[in-house]
């Protein structure tokens, strides 16, 4: 039988699955085991995140390489949410690619009863289990004493205590894995109907009575005191708004310097390459195509890192659960659920993981509405666009020392997204029909200090995804765009060159001015210019010219491509390489009016367009995966684009 071969001295490769309730410290334990050797992927066919990692250890008979799979947190093997189903499927199906040799079950030692419910269900699935009693220090502080040996004897599994936060006990777990008894072990037979839940808990109660003693220590309860403030009818909401305001202000002011460093290093690099390499199409592609596009995107890494940093803190400390709690009733009025808060706030970072996190909403209608409206939240990809445009059209005024006018406009853009979210949700509430029941049964985790290592790893992972996945798309688009903007149909480019080589024109202005004029005329005659001009009649009522038109087309792939596109267009259309895109765009003159192209009306209209338009292929793809139907991403694309066009039209016509 397969089970008998679980651990033999010759076995050097091992698959270990980490299972447990949410909030049991499972991910901290996973990080302790794997460190930086981890990756996030997908389970085939579903959208649940699959975290795997590698860990090396010795078990006396030799070195073992263990593949660790961090299963989604669950309370029961009985399928309810997709997450819980996956965990049960991986463990019970022998043919599953990730089927483990050993299960390491991480339990919150101060909440042992509920932890053992799921744990004993897993034991009954027939795999060897190592029970890890995590957060043992907190349990001890609460006066809970656990007899490990007795518990191990009763359950028939090794029991090890750890404090994952301080990385104490990880070694003990590994040696327990190395010496596990592969024999099958059954805790309770029977089906999981209502009565079986009761019987299982009854048996757990009997065991706990033998192994656990509790001497109640009355301590001032930190969590209750904080809850009195964070869920207070006035303070609760005021603090929530304050936290959001603080985050946005911090992102804007803290990222200023690192952004300038990145910007100036790219200008230096660009200069260096232009001077060192021979002039020609390849150098041009490298500097004006790839580097220009890349710098436009990499410059936003400081902001994205900060944003994910704050969201991770809100989640990790347990504050996000309180926000769900105080907002559930309001959310319900809009056809949403208190749990929609997590996707919505994560939507401020990126709609893709946000939409995936909507899986915790059990009710289909509430989940669908959350998915449909989350992309209206101001995601980090819009941030580069907003920051560029705000710095162009909004004066940099300060008041009250800390608040800047630019920061307030940015906050306004976030609020605009927020209002749109609820407006759209309200409409969907009446359009979509459902008779299914809605739930809000969830654990309120105790408040904890953020685990900086976990947060650090999260940020690292997000930046990696952003730089590689987004960077790839942007480089590809930059190259295509460079080609489209550097070549034109027929002999249009030769005509322009001929015109400027004509001695009469050649001596009329200084060489610099002439070079700029020729470059911008060439851009207008290029393929990109032709495309931009073709859609100009449609976007002109919104105040956009053909250059913005090019950016609108390219940023359908992803919003932040706007900045890269602008960078490429303005590098090609401008011979001077020492100015940043910001300065180049600021200097752009509208030939019809003689004023600046980026006036207040155009800037705001463009920002409104980016606030509402569905310009993200990855989001559409993830919506398809989550809803399993093309209908939903299609509806989303149409309603958001229509909303964007109309609002932008209104904004421009009103402001111009």
């Amino acid at each position, binding site marked *: 039988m397969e089970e008998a071969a679980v651990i033999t001295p010759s076995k050097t490769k091992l698959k270990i699955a980490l299972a447990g309730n949410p909030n049991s410290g499972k991910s901290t334990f996973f990080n302790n085991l794997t460190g930086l050797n981890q990756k996030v992927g997908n389970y085939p066919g579903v959208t649940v995140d699959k975290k795997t990692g590698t860990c090396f250890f010795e078990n006396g008979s030799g070195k073992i390489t263990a593949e660790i799979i961090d299963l989604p947190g669950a*309370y*029961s093997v*009985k399928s*309810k949410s997709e997450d819980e189903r996956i965990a049960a499927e991986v463990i019970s199906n022998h043919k599953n690619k990730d089927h483990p040799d050993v299960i390491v079950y991480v339990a919150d030692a*101060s*909440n042992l*009863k*509920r932890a053992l*419910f799921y744990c004993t269900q897993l034991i009954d699935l027939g795999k060897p289990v190592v029970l890890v009693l995590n957060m043992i220090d907190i349990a001890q502080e609460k006066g809970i004493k656990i007899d490990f040996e007795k518990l191990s004897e009763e359950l028939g599994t090794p029991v090890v205590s750890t404090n994952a936060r301080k990385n104490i006990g990880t070694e003990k777990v590994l040696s327990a894995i190395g010496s596990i008894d592969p024999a099958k072990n059954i805790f309770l037979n029977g089906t999981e109907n*209502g009565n079986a*839940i*009761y019987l299982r*808990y009854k048996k757990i109660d009997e065991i706990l009575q033998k192994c656990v003693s509790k001497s109640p220590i009355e301590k001032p309860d930190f*969590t*209750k005191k904080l*809850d009195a403030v964070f*869920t*207070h*009818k*006035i303070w*609760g*909401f005021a603090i929530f708004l304050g936290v959001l305001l603080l985050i946005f202000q911090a992102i804007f002011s803290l990222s200023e310097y690192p952004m300038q460093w990145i910007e100036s290093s790219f200008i230096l690099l660009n200069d260096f390459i232009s001077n060192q390499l021979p002039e020609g199409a390849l150098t041009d592609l490298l500097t004006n195509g790839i580097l220009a596009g890349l710098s436009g995107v990499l410059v936003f890494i400081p902001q994205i890192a900060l944003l994910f940093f704050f969201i991770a803190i809100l989640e990790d400390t347990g504050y996000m*659960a309180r926000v769900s*709690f*105080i907002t*559930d*009733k*309001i959310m319900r009025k809009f056809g949403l659920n*208190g749990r929609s808060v997590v996707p919505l706030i994560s939507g401020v970072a990126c709609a893709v993981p946000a939409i995936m996190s909507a899986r915790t909403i059990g009710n289909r209608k509430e989940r669908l509405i959350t998915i449909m409206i989350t992309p209206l939240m101001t995601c980090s990809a819009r941030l580069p666009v907003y920051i560029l445009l705000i710095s162009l059209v909004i004066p940099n005024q300060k008041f009250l020392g800390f608040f800047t006018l630019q920061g307030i406009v940015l906050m306004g853009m976030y609020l605009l997204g927020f209002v749109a979210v609820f407006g759209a949700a309200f409409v969907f509430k009446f359009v979509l029909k459902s008779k299914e*029941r809605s*739930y*809000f*049964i*969830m*654990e*309120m985790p*105790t408040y904890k200090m953020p685990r900086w290592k976990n947060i650090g790893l999260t940020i690292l992972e997000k930046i990696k995804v952003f730089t590689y996945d987004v960077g790839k798309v942007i480089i590809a688009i930059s190259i295509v765009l460079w080609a489209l903007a550097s070549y034109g149909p027929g002999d249009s480019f030769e005509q322009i060159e001929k015109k400027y080589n004509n001695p009469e024109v050649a001596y009329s202005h200084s060489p610099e001015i002439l070079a700029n004029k020729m470059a911008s005329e060439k851009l207008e005659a290029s393929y990109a210019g032709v495309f931009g001009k073709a859609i100009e009649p449609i976007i002109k009522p919104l105040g956009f010219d053909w250059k913005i038109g090019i950016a609108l087309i390219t940023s359908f792939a992803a919003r932040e491509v706007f900045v890269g596109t602008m960078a490429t267009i303005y590098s090609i259309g401008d011979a001077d390489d020492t100015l940043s895109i910001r300065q180049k765009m600021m200097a752009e003159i509208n030939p019809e009016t003689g004023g600046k192209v980026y006036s207040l009306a155009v800037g705001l209209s463009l920002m409104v367009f980016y606030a509402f338009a569905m310009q993200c292929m990855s989001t559409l793809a993830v919506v398809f995966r989550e809803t399993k139907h093309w209908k939903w991403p299609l509806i989303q694309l149409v309603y958001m684009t229509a909303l964007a066009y109309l609002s932008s039209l209104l904004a421009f016509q009103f402001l111009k």
Partner: protein
Amino acid sequence: MSISTCFLSELKAGDSAVIESFSENEISEKLMEMGCLPGEAVKLERIAPLGDPLIISISGYELSLRKAEAATVLVKK
């Protein structure tokens, strides 16, 4: 002391009680998996600022649920 039965949703913040039974199958299963079993002591810790949902403490931890869900749980005061 008088013993009276009522629904979990009818408790006031700070009230303690013992779970008696459930009036609805689907919700009861969910609640029981989370440790809300007949015979278990329960305390209503907090009511959300807008009157709904609630936070109860049960078997050593805190659980939030809506009033409508709590209205399917019969408790003994």
